[in-house]
Protein backbone atom coordinates (compact mmCIF):
# COMPACT_ATOMS: atom_id res chain seq x y z
CA UNK A 1 0.00 0.00 0.00
CA UNK A 2 1.33 3.46 -0.92
CA UNK A 3 0.45 6.74 0.78
CA UNK A 4 1.44 10.26 -0.19
CA UNK A 5 1.32 12.41 2.94
CA UNK A 6 1.15 16.21 3.12
CA UNK A 7 1.86 18.24 6.26
CA UNK A 8 1.69 22.03 6.48
CA UNK A 9 0.29 22.81 9.92
CA UNK A 10 2.93 25.36 10.93
CA UNK A 11 6.46 26.21 9.74
CA UNK A 12 7.26 23.18 7.69
CA UNK A 13 5.95 22.25 4.30
CA UNK A 14 6.50 18.53 4.20
CA UNK A 15 5.63 15.54 2.05
CA UNK A 16 6.40 11.87 2.38
CA UNK A 17 5.71 8.57 0.68
CA UNK A 18 4.94 5.65 2.97
CA UNK A 19 4.74 2.11 1.68
CA UNK A 20 3.68 -0.70 4.02
CA UNK A 21 4.87 1.25 7.08
CA UNK A 22 8.22 1.99 5.49
CA UNK A 23 9.30 5.56 4.84
CA UNK A 24 10.35 5.80 1.18
CA UNK A 25 10.86 9.55 1.33
CA UNK A 26 10.49 12.30 3.92
CA UNK A 27 10.94 15.78 2.50
CA UNK A 28 10.87 18.80 4.80
CA UNK A 29 11.28 22.32 3.51
CA UNK A 30 12.24 24.29 6.60
CA UNK A 31 11.20 27.88 6.25
CA UNK A 32 14.40 29.30 7.63
CA UNK A 33 13.48 32.88 6.81
CA UNK A 34 11.19 32.85 9.84
CA UNK A 35 14.15 33.22 12.14
CA UNK A 36 14.68 36.75 10.85
CA UNK A 37 11.35 37.84 12.26
CA UNK A 38 11.25 36.36 15.73
CA UNK A 39 8.36 33.98 15.31
CA UNK A 40 6.26 31.96 12.93
CA UNK A 41 4.47 34.49 10.82
CA UNK A 42 1.05 33.41 9.60
CA UNK A 43 1.16 35.33 6.37
CA UNK A 44 4.64 34.25 5.42
CA UNK A 45 3.84 30.73 6.53
CA UNK A 46 0.81 30.18 4.31
CA UNK A 47 2.36 32.02 1.40
CA UNK A 48 5.52 29.98 1.65
CA UNK A 49 3.49 26.78 1.87
CA UNK A 50 1.72 27.77 -1.35
CA UNK A 51 5.02 28.28 -3.10
CA UNK A 52 6.71 25.12 -1.93
CA UNK A 53 3.99 22.53 -1.54
CA UNK A 54 3.90 21.13 -5.09
CA UNK A 55 7.70 21.11 -5.30
CA UNK A 56 7.97 19.26 -2.00
CA UNK A 57 5.26 16.74 -2.97
CA UNK A 58 6.88 16.06 -6.32
CA UNK A 59 10.26 15.59 -4.66
CA UNK A 60 8.76 13.11 -2.20
CA UNK A 61 7.40 11.03 -5.09
CA UNK A 62 10.63 11.26 -7.10
CA UNK A 63 12.79 10.24 -4.17
CA UNK A 64 10.46 7.32 -3.44
CA UNK A 65 10.61 6.35 -7.15
CA UNK A 66 6.83 6.29 -7.26
CA UNK A 67 4.20 7.88 -9.46
CA UNK A 68 1.16 9.64 -8.09
CA UNK A 69 -1.00 7.06 -9.91
CA UNK A 70 0.49 4.36 -7.69
CA UNK A 71 -0.79 5.99 -4.51
CA UNK A 72 -3.63 4.23 -2.67
CA UNK A 73 -4.46 7.36 -0.69
CA UNK A 74 -3.41 10.90 0.11
CA UNK A 75 -3.03 11.77 3.78
CA UNK A 76 -3.14 15.37 4.92
CA UNK A 77 -2.90 17.18 8.25
CA UNK A 78 -6.19 18.94 8.99
CA UNK A 79 -5.76 19.80 12.67
CA UNK A 80 -4.42 21.42 14.81
CA UNK A 81 -2.33 24.28 13.45
CA UNK A 82 -2.45 27.68 11.80
CA UNK A 83 -5.69 27.88 9.86
CA UNK A 84 -4.13 29.46 6.76
CA UNK A 85 -1.34 26.91 6.62
CA UNK A 86 -3.68 23.96 7.14
CA UNK A 87 -5.94 25.19 4.35
CA UNK A 88 -3.06 25.28 1.87
CA UNK A 89 -2.17 21.65 2.58
CA UNK A 90 -5.72 20.38 2.68
CA UNK A 91 -6.76 22.11 -0.55
CA UNK A 92 -3.67 20.85 -2.32
CA UNK A 93 -4.51 17.32 -1.17
CA UNK A 94 -8.14 17.70 -2.24
CA UNK A 95 -6.98 18.83 -5.69
CA UNK A 96 -4.81 15.73 -6.09
CA UNK A 97 -7.59 13.54 -4.78
CA UNK A 98 -10.06 14.84 -7.36
CA UNK A 99 -7.66 14.78 -10.28
CA UNK A 100 -6.33 11.27 -9.67
CA UNK A 101 -9.44 9.87 -8.01
CA UNK A 102 -7.57 8.79 -4.87
CA UNK A 103 -9.13 8.57 -1.37
CA UNK A 104 -8.08 11.28 1.05
CA UNK A 105 -7.36 10.72 4.74
CA UNK A 106 -7.71 13.81 7.00
CA UNK A 107 -5.17 13.32 9.76
CA UNK A 108 -4.57 14.83 13.18
CA UNK A 109 -1.09 16.27 13.62
CA UNK A 110 -0.86 15.26 17.28
CA UNK A 111 -1.78 11.68 16.40
CA UNK A 112 1.08 11.78 13.92
CA UNK A 113 3.46 12.65 16.77
CA UNK A 114 1.91 10.01 19.05
CA UNK A 115 2.84 7.19 16.71
CA UNK A 116 6.06 8.64 15.30
CA UNK A 117 8.14 6.34 17.53
CA UNK A 118 6.73 3.31 15.75
CA UNK A 119 8.19 4.47 12.43
CA UNK A 120 11.73 3.88 13.60
CA UNK A 121 11.22 1.25 16.28
CA UNK A 122 8.99 -1.76 15.60
CA UNK A 123 9.55 -3.22 19.05
CA UNK A 124 7.54 -0.64 21.00
CA UNK A 125 5.11 -2.42 23.30
CA UNK A 126 1.51 -1.26 23.70
CA UNK A 127 0.26 0.42 25.76
CA UNK A 128 2.89 3.14 25.97
CA UNK A 129 3.09 6.70 27.26
CA UNK A 130 3.71 9.53 24.79
CA UNK A 131 4.87 13.00 25.75
CA UNK A 132 4.22 15.47 22.93
CA UNK A 133 6.24 18.65 23.42
CA UNK A 134 6.51 21.48 20.91
CA UNK A 135 5.95 25.18 20.37
CA UNK A 136 2.20 24.69 20.36
CA UNK A 137 1.65 21.58 22.47
CA UNK A 138 2.61 19.97 25.73
CA UNK A 139 0.56 16.92 26.57
CA UNK A 140 0.82 13.40 27.92
CA UNK A 141 -1.06 10.51 26.34
CA UNK A 142 -1.59 6.87 27.03
CA UNK A 143 -1.56 5.03 23.72
CA UNK A 144 -3.35 1.69 23.56
CA UNK A 145 -3.54 0.96 19.85
CA UNK A 146 -3.39 2.71 16.51
CA UNK A 147 -6.97 3.81 16.96
CA UNK A 148 -7.23 4.17 20.73
CA UNK A 149 -5.44 6.61 22.98
CA UNK A 150 -6.36 8.92 25.82
CA UNK A 151 -5.20 12.36 26.91
CA UNK A 152 -3.81 12.19 30.45
CA UNK A 153 -3.07 15.88 30.81
CA UNK A 154 -1.80 18.95 29.02
CA UNK A 155 -0.54 22.44 29.65
CA UNK A 156 -3.09 24.76 31.21
CA UNK A 157 -1.39 27.85 29.76
CA UNK A 158 1.80 27.96 27.66
CA UNK A 159 3.36 25.06 25.76
CA UNK A 160 6.90 24.10 26.79
CA UNK A 161 8.33 25.16 23.43
CA UNK A 162 6.50 28.46 23.78
CA UNK A 163 8.14 28.90 27.20
CA UNK A 164 11.59 28.28 25.68
CA UNK A 165 10.85 30.76 22.88
CA UNK A 166 9.35 33.53 25.03
CA UNK A 167 12.00 33.26 27.75
CA UNK A 168 14.60 33.22 24.98
CA UNK A 169 13.15 36.52 23.72
CA UNK A 170 13.56 37.98 27.24
CA UNK A 171 17.19 36.81 27.21
CA UNK A 172 17.76 38.39 23.80
CA UNK A 173 18.23 35.07 22.00
CA UNK A 174 17.28 34.52 18.34
CA UNK A 175 14.20 32.54 17.33
CA UNK A 176 13.67 29.66 17.73
CA UNK A 177 15.26 29.94 21.15
CA UNK A 178 14.95 26.27 22.16
CA UNK A 179 18.05 24.96 20.35
CA UNK A 180 19.94 28.11 21.38
CA UNK A 181 19.10 27.61 25.08
CA UNK A 182 20.06 23.93 24.79
CA UNK A 183 23.44 24.89 23.35
CA UNK A 184 24.19 27.63 25.90
CA UNK A 185 23.00 25.46 28.79
CA UNK A 186 25.72 22.91 28.05
CA UNK A 187 28.35 25.23 29.57
CA UNK A 188 26.09 26.56 32.34
CA UNK A 189 25.26 25.43 35.86
CA UNK A 190 21.66 24.12 36.03
CA UNK A 191 21.57 24.79 39.78
CA UNK A 192 22.88 28.36 39.58
CA UNK A 193 19.39 29.85 39.94
CA UNK A 194 16.19 28.34 41.26
CA UNK A 195 13.17 28.80 39.00
CA UNK A 196 9.72 27.46 39.88
CA UNK A 197 8.59 23.98 38.84
CA UNK A 198 4.88 24.70 38.50
CA UNK A 199 2.46 21.87 39.16
CA UNK A 200 5.31 19.44 39.89
CA UNK A 201 3.26 17.95 42.71
CA UNK A 202 -0.21 18.81 41.40
CA UNK A 203 -1.24 15.16 41.52
CA UNK A 204 -2.36 15.17 37.90
CA UNK A 205 -0.68 15.19 34.49
CA UNK A 206 -1.23 18.84 33.67
CA UNK A 207 1.57 21.32 33.11
CA UNK A 208 1.96 25.07 33.55
CA UNK A 209 4.80 27.16 32.15
CA UNK A 210 3.33 30.66 32.35
CA UNK A 211 4.58 31.28 35.91
CA UNK A 212 8.11 30.38 34.90
CA UNK A 213 8.00 33.11 32.28
CA UNK A 214 6.89 35.70 34.86
CA UNK A 215 9.47 34.49 37.34
CA UNK A 216 12.31 34.85 34.82
CA UNK A 217 11.15 38.38 34.11
CA UNK A 218 11.34 39.38 37.79
CA UNK A 219 14.58 37.52 38.26
CA UNK A 220 16.23 39.51 35.45
CA UNK A 221 14.79 42.78 36.74
CA UNK A 222 15.99 42.16 40.29
CA UNK A 223 19.32 40.44 39.78
CA UNK A 224 20.47 42.26 36.68
CA UNK A 225 18.75 45.66 36.53
CA UNK A 226 21.39 46.86 34.07
CA UNK A 227 20.99 43.90 31.73
CA UNK A 228 22.14 40.31 31.89
CA UNK A 229 25.94 40.05 31.56
CA UNK A 230 26.90 37.67 28.78
CA UNK A 231 28.92 35.41 31.08
CA UNK A 232 25.79 34.69 33.13
CA UNK A 233 23.72 33.66 30.12
CA UNK A 234 24.76 29.97 30.16
CA UNK A 235 23.81 29.65 33.86
CA UNK A 236 20.40 31.27 33.30
CA UNK A 237 19.75 29.07 30.24
CA UNK A 238 20.80 25.92 32.11
CA UNK A 239 18.63 26.82 35.12
CA UNK A 240 15.56 27.61 32.99
CA UNK A 241 16.00 24.44 30.96
CA UNK A 242 16.40 22.44 34.17
CA UNK A 243 13.09 23.79 35.49
CA UNK A 244 11.23 22.85 32.30
CA UNK A 245 12.87 19.44 31.91
CA UNK A 246 12.31 18.54 35.58
CA UNK A 247 8.54 18.84 35.26
CA UNK A 248 8.30 17.17 31.84
CA UNK A 249 10.37 14.20 32.98
CA UNK A 250 8.74 13.75 36.38
CA UNK A 251 5.21 13.68 34.97
CA UNK A 252 6.19 11.39 32.09
CA UNK A 253 7.87 8.90 34.41
CA UNK A 254 5.00 9.08 36.90
CA UNK A 255 2.53 8.27 34.12
CA UNK A 256 4.72 5.46 32.80
CA UNK A 257 4.90 3.92 36.27
CA UNK A 258 1.20 4.40 37.04
CA UNK A 259 0.13 2.71 33.81
CA UNK A 260 2.89 0.14 34.04
CA UNK A 261 4.18 0.59 30.49
CA UNK A 262 7.44 -0.61 28.95
CA UNK A 263 8.00 2.36 26.66
CA UNK A 264 7.90 6.13 26.85
CA UNK A 265 7.92 8.05 23.56
CA UNK A 266 8.98 11.69 23.53
CA UNK A 267 7.89 13.46 20.36
CA UNK A 268 7.58 16.97 18.94
CA UNK A 269 10.15 19.71 18.39
CA UNK A 270 11.17 20.06 22.04
CA UNK A 271 12.04 16.34 22.11
CA UNK A 272 15.24 17.34 20.30
CA UNK A 273 16.40 19.01 23.54
CA UNK A 274 19.49 17.11 24.67
CA UNK A 275 18.89 17.60 28.41
CA UNK A 276 15.31 16.31 28.13
CA UNK A 277 16.44 13.24 26.18
CA UNK A 278 19.22 12.35 28.58
CA UNK A 279 17.28 12.98 31.78
CA UNK A 280 14.23 11.07 30.61
CA UNK A 281 16.36 8.14 29.44
CA UNK A 282 18.30 7.98 32.72
CA UNK A 283 15.27 8.37 34.98
CA UNK A 284 13.19 5.87 33.01
CA UNK A 285 15.95 3.27 33.09
CA UNK A 286 15.77 3.24 36.89
CA UNK A 287 12.13 2.15 36.53
CA UNK A 288 12.83 -0.41 33.82
CA UNK A 289 11.21 1.76 31.18
CA UNK A 290 12.72 2.41 27.77
CA UNK A 291 12.60 5.90 26.32
CA UNK A 292 12.25 6.06 22.55
CA UNK A 293 14.32 8.97 21.37
CA UNK A 294 13.34 10.03 17.87
CA UNK A 295 15.63 10.75 14.96
CA UNK A 296 15.75 14.51 14.32
CA UNK A 297 13.63 14.24 11.14
CA UNK A 298 10.80 12.70 13.17
CA UNK A 299 11.06 15.17 16.08
CA UNK A 300 10.16 18.19 14.01
CA UNK A 301 6.94 18.46 12.05
CA UNK A 302 7.14 15.94 9.24
CA UNK A 303 4.84 14.20 6.79
CA UNK A 304 6.17 10.67 7.36
CA UNK A 305 4.35 10.48 10.70
CA UNK A 306 1.13 11.65 8.99
CA UNK A 307 1.41 9.00 6.26
CA UNK A 308 2.36 6.31 8.78
CA UNK A 309 -0.76 6.67 10.92
CA UNK A 310 -2.98 7.33 7.88
CA UNK A 311 -1.91 4.01 6.35
CA UNK A 312 -2.93 2.18 9.56
CA UNK A 313 -6.32 3.89 9.44
CA UNK A 314 -6.80 2.99 5.78
CA UNK A 315 -6.04 -0.66 6.53
CA UNK A 316 -8.51 -0.60 9.40
CA UNK A 317 -11.39 1.30 7.80
CA UNK A 318 -10.98 0.64 4.07
CA UNK A 319 -10.93 3.17 1.20
CA UNK A 320 -14.70 3.75 1.23
CA UNK A 321 -14.36 5.59 4.54
CA UNK A 322 -12.16 8.20 2.87
CA UNK A 323 -14.15 9.49 -0.10
CA UNK A 324 -15.48 12.62 1.59
CA UNK A 325 -13.95 15.88 0.39
CA UNK A 326 -16.07 18.17 2.54
CA UNK A 327 -13.96 17.94 5.68
CA UNK A 328 -12.72 21.17 7.25
CA UNK A 329 -9.51 22.19 8.92
CA UNK A 330 -9.44 23.02 12.62
CA UNK A 331 -6.98 25.20 14.56
CA UNK A 332 -7.32 23.38 17.84
CA UNK A 333 -8.14 19.78 18.60
CA UNK A 334 -7.00 19.03 22.13
CA UNK A 335 -10.00 20.71 23.70
CA UNK A 336 -12.41 18.71 25.75
CA UNK A 337 -15.78 18.55 24.06
CA UNK A 338 -18.55 20.55 25.64
CA UNK A 339 -20.78 18.36 27.75
CA UNK A 340 -24.16 19.45 26.43
Amino acid at each position, binding site marked *: MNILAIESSCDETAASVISNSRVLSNIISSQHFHSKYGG*VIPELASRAHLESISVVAREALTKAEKKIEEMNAIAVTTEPGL*IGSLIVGSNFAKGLSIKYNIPIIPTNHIEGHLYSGNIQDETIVLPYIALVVS*GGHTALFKVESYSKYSLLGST*VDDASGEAFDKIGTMLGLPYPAGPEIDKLAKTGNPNAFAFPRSMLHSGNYNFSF*SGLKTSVRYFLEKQFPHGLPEEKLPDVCASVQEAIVDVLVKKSIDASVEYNVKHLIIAGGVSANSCLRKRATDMARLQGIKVVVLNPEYCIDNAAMIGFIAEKRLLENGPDAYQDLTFKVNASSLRAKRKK
Partner: protein
Amino acid sequence: MKLGKFTTKNQKETYDLGFRFADELKPGNVVALFGDLGAGKTEFIKGICAYFKVDELVNSPTFTIMNQYIGELDENEIPILHIDLYRIKKSSELKEIGFDEIIFSNDSIKLVEWADKAFGVLPPDTYSINISFKKNNENERIITID
Protein backbone atom coordinates in the same frame (compact mmCIF):
# COMPACT_ATOMS: atom_id res chain seq x y z
CA MET B 1 -19.05 46.70 37.82
CA LYS B 2 -17.46 50.14 37.77
CA LEU B 3 -14.56 50.48 35.36
CA GLY B 4 -11.31 52.07 36.47
CA LYS B 5 -8.05 51.20 38.10
CA PHE B 6 -7.57 48.07 40.21
CA THR B 7 -4.72 46.45 42.06
CA THR B 8 -4.62 42.68 42.22
CA LYS B 9 -2.41 40.96 44.77
CA ASN B 10 -2.00 37.60 43.06
CA GLN B 11 -2.97 35.45 40.09
CA LYS B 12 -6.25 34.46 41.72
CA GLU B 13 -7.30 38.09 42.14
CA THR B 14 -6.49 38.81 38.49
CA TYR B 15 -8.69 35.85 37.55
CA ASP B 16 -11.47 37.07 39.88
CA LEU B 17 -11.32 40.57 38.41
CA GLY B 18 -11.74 39.09 34.93
CA PHE B 19 -14.72 37.11 36.21
CA ARG B 20 -16.39 40.20 37.72
CA PHE B 21 -15.65 42.35 34.67
CA ALA B 22 -17.25 39.75 32.36
CA ASP B 23 -20.66 40.76 33.70
CA GLU B 24 -20.32 43.86 31.46
CA LEU B 25 -19.97 41.85 28.27
CA LYS B 26 -22.54 41.04 25.65
CA PRO B 27 -22.36 39.43 22.19
CA GLY B 28 -20.34 41.52 19.73
CA ASN B 29 -18.07 43.06 22.37
CA VAL B 30 -14.33 43.20 21.92
CA VAL B 31 -11.93 43.17 24.86
CA ALA B 32 -8.40 44.29 24.05
CA LEU B 33 -5.67 43.25 26.48
CA PHE B 34 -2.34 45.01 26.82
CA GLY B 35 0.58 43.95 28.97
CA ASP B 36 4.06 42.49 28.83
CA LEU B 37 5.06 38.82 28.77
CA GLY B 38 3.93 37.22 32.01
CA ALA B 39 1.64 40.08 33.09
CA GLY B 40 -1.43 37.87 33.44
CA LYS B 41 -3.47 38.49 30.29
CA THR B 42 -4.35 34.84 29.88
CA GLU B 43 -5.25 34.64 33.58
CA PHE B 44 -7.69 37.56 33.24
CA ILE B 45 -9.20 35.83 30.18
CA LYS B 46 -9.55 32.59 32.14
CA GLY B 47 -11.68 34.56 34.60
CA ILE B 48 -13.88 35.96 31.83
CA CYS B 49 -14.34 32.49 30.34
CA ALA B 50 -15.25 31.05 33.74
CA TYR B 51 -18.02 33.65 34.03
CA PHE B 52 -19.47 32.37 30.76
CA LYS B 53 -19.18 28.78 32.05
CA VAL B 54 -16.62 27.70 29.47
CA ASP B 55 -15.70 24.17 30.50
CA GLU B 56 -12.98 23.64 27.94
CA LEU B 57 -9.32 24.25 28.65
CA VAL B 58 -8.49 27.93 28.22
CA ASN B 59 -4.79 28.15 27.34
CA SER B 60 -2.39 30.25 25.33
CA PRO B 61 -3.29 30.51 21.62
CA THR B 62 0.15 31.87 20.69
CA PHE B 63 0.77 28.94 18.36
CA THR B 64 -2.56 28.82 16.54
CA ILE B 65 -3.34 32.55 16.93
CA MET B 66 -6.95 31.82 17.89
CA ASN B 67 -8.82 29.48 20.22
CA GLN B 68 -12.57 29.24 20.07
CA TYR B 69 -14.63 28.29 23.10
CA ILE B 70 -18.35 27.88 23.57
CA GLY B 71 -19.70 29.76 26.56
CA GLU B 72 -23.15 30.30 28.00
CA LEU B 73 -25.09 33.55 28.37
CA ASP B 74 -28.72 33.65 29.55
CA GLU B 75 -28.96 29.93 28.77
CA ASN B 76 -27.86 30.48 25.18
CA GLU B 77 -24.57 29.35 23.75
CA ILE B 78 -22.14 32.12 22.97
CA PRO B 79 -18.91 31.72 20.98
CA ILE B 80 -15.88 33.22 22.70
CA LEU B 81 -12.87 33.91 20.50
CA HIS B 82 -9.53 34.02 22.29
CA ILE B 83 -7.07 35.68 19.95
CA ASP B 84 -3.34 36.16 20.50
CA LEU B 85 -1.51 38.60 18.24
CA TYR B 86 1.91 37.98 19.82
CA ARG B 87 3.38 36.70 16.59
CA ILE B 88 1.79 39.27 14.30
CA LYS B 89 4.39 41.62 12.90
CA LYS B 90 2.55 43.76 10.36
CA SER B 91 -0.97 44.78 9.46
CA SER B 92 -1.17 42.72 6.25
CA GLU B 93 -0.84 39.59 8.39
CA LEU B 94 -4.07 40.50 10.16
CA LYS B 95 -5.84 40.25 6.80
CA GLU B 96 -4.31 36.83 6.27
CA ILE B 97 -5.92 35.51 9.45
CA GLY B 98 -9.21 37.27 8.67
CA PHE B 99 -8.90 39.49 11.72
CA ASP B 100 -11.24 42.27 10.56
CA GLU B 101 -13.99 39.79 9.76
CA ILE B 102 -13.59 38.10 13.11
CA ILE B 103 -13.41 41.28 15.14
CA PHE B 104 -16.60 42.80 13.71
CA SER B 105 -18.74 39.66 13.98
CA ASN B 106 -21.60 40.48 16.33
CA ASP B 107 -22.60 37.08 17.64
CA SER B 108 -19.43 36.39 19.59
CA ILE B 109 -17.25 37.88 22.32
CA LYS B 110 -13.71 38.58 21.23
CA LEU B 111 -10.80 38.61 23.68
CA VAL B 112 -7.61 39.92 22.07
CA GLU B 113 -4.19 39.48 23.68
CA TRP B 114 -1.31 41.69 22.47
CA ALA B 115 -3.95 44.07 21.12
CA ASP B 116 -1.25 46.70 20.47
CA LYS B 117 -0.58 44.63 17.35
CA ALA B 118 -4.13 45.09 16.05
CA PHE B 119 -2.92 48.21 14.22
CA GLY B 120 -6.04 50.17 15.06
CA VAL B 121 -8.38 47.54 13.59
CA LEU B 122 -10.60 47.55 16.68
CA PRO B 123 -14.17 48.88 17.03
CA PRO B 124 -14.50 52.22 18.89
CA ASP B 125 -16.44 50.66 21.78
CA THR B 126 -13.70 48.14 22.55
CA TYR B 127 -12.99 47.58 26.25
CA SER B 128 -9.33 47.94 26.98
CA ILE B 129 -7.55 46.15 29.78
CA ASN B 130 -4.06 47.33 30.67
CA ILE B 131 -2.08 45.07 32.96
CA SER B 132 1.17 46.42 34.34
CA PHE B 133 3.71 45.12 36.79
CA LYS B 134 4.35 46.71 40.13
CA LYS B 135 7.99 47.39 40.81
CA ASN B 136 9.54 45.05 43.36
CA ASN B 137 6.44 42.99 43.86
CA GLU B 138 6.29 39.82 41.87
CA ASN B 139 2.61 39.11 42.36
CA GLU B 140 0.83 42.47 42.37
CA ARG B 141 -0.54 43.97 39.18
CA ILE B 142 -2.15 47.28 38.32
CA ILE B 143 -5.08 46.67 36.02
CA THR B 144 -6.86 49.51 34.27
CA ILE B 145 -10.20 48.78 32.66
CA ASP B 146 -11.86 51.28 30.34
